[in-house]
């Protein structure tokens, strides 16, 4: 694994991708903090007599993925491509350069391929989660809010139906999924969503890695995770199964109705099984060093 980490750190694309992710997060935070200040001012002016309404306008709603800010949505749109870029074509490149054969005669074939698969999954997971956590810290730092007990208390009252609001307060704050976590702390809610997103990011990258055994065009290999993500979005949208689409499911805002816990598990399992199946098929296809 250390060799893989060294290769990963020596790759320029790693730093380019990290910069792109951090830039997107930075822009999302910058726009989000501005929007938060505006919304807080308006709410204090309009609903200043209703403490619950003011408490519900919380900075955590401007963490990356939580807000309507363009760059926040864009992060969730483009992540399968960017988190996969440094790792998805590693086998393809090593095969093209001949390094694959050089390594295979020096180590167990199964260990090599297993290591590649696990490493791709972990790297994509980390690349997805770390910028989001940095975004979370930046928003808290810029708004000076680290304790969300006012929000959780107001949200608890909202769920119980005892909160007192003015007429203009939107009730869209109420979440269908993981609502209990949000009642405890927005940190828990965000972490769960970021972890699930990270798992999916890993699965998309592993699918791309598996596809690299069968696709000869490097450009296409790099785009496989995004193609799968957007392809699923298109097909699930046309089939009107919005709650089953990772594009909607992974979004912490919960933008569609009828979301359930089961699709999270089923989609992920299907995706991973598909990736593993293709990977095993690809590894067997490349069993012979002269293949």
């Amino acid at each position: 694994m250390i060799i893989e980490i060294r290769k990963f750190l020596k790759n320029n694309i790693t730093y380019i991708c990290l910069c792109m992710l951090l830039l997107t997060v930075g822009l999302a935070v910058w726009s989000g903090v501005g929007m938060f200040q505006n919304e807080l001012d308006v709410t204090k002016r309009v609903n200043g007599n209703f403490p619950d309404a003011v408490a519900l306008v919380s900075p955590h709603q401007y963490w990356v993925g939580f807000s309507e800010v363009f760059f926040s949505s864009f992060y969730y749109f483009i992540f399968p491509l960017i988190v996969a870029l440094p790792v998805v074509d590693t086998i393809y490149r090593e095969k093209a350069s001949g390094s694959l054969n050089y390594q295979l005669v020096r180590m167990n074939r199964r260990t090599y391929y297993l290591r590649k698969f696990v490493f791709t999954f972990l790297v994509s997971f980390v690349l997805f989660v770390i910028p989001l956590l940095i975004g979370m810290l930046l928003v808290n730092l810029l708004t000076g809010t680290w304790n969300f007990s006012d929000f959780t208390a107001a949200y608890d009252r909202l769920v119980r139906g005892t909160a007192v609001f003015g007429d203009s307060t939107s009730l869209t704050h109420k979440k269908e999924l993981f609502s209990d976590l949000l009642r405890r702390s927005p940190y828990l809610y965000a972490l769960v969503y970021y972890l699930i997103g990270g798992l999916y990011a890993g699965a998309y990258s592993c699918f791309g890695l598996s596809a690299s055994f069968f696709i000869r065009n490097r450009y296409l290999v790099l785009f496989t995770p995004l193609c799968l993500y957007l392809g699923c979005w298109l097909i699930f949208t046309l089939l009107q199964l919005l709650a089953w689409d990772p594009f909607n499911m992974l979004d912490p805002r919960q933008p569609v109705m009828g979301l359930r816990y089961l699709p999270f598990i089923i989609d992920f399992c299907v995706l991973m099984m598909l990736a593993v199946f293709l990977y095993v098929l690809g590894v067997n296809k490349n069993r012979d060093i002269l293949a």
Partner: protein
Amino acid sequence: MISWLDIPRFYFQDLKLIKKTVIVILCAIPIIYILGASLNDFVQAAQTFRRFALSLRFEFFYCPLFILMLGMHNKPSDWIIIRRFTRRGEMALCEIGSVLISALLFTLFVILSGILVYCSYGYPFSENLASLSDFVLLFYLVIVMIGLLFVSASAVVGRVLASIAAIALVVLDRFTAAIVPLILYDENNTAPLAAILVVVIVLLSCIIVMQSNGKDYYVRNDRH
């Protein structure tokens, strides 16, 4: 010296190398149309062919698909490409020509398969020929503009990053200024919009020719 007539020949020579993938990409369009026309209320509710075609979102479907189709071609620095030319300008012209032909193929496929599915599902084809040709022209020009933008960006940052930039720009436009949707949905100002798009395309073409003068085609960089 190559002539203009060589550009389609070169293009189809290159296309032969990736024909299977291009067929898969192009076949995705009618399949998605059929799925939409059979199962999706929003697509079924389209009153005109223009609305039917645009019910599949431009920024999430047509644009990434076209960029993918363009990006799969060989890089200009690949020796099988570079050996054809004697001057830098020729390479730039060939790249521009490839975008024009790719866009034409893509547009024709979108429109023809769309009309086929639209009519076979029993939608009344209420559009007249003038309105349809306006839409086809604007769609083609928009696709060409995005393609040239991609080519220009790929000369600086490589194909993958250029793809991300082009897709991001179209998505950004959709959620901010909405220029592309404005052009595609507009039914009354085709001539001025087409004129503006042609000017932008000519400008981008000039930029690509200028970029080719300073570009190092001999660098072996497989990173992008």
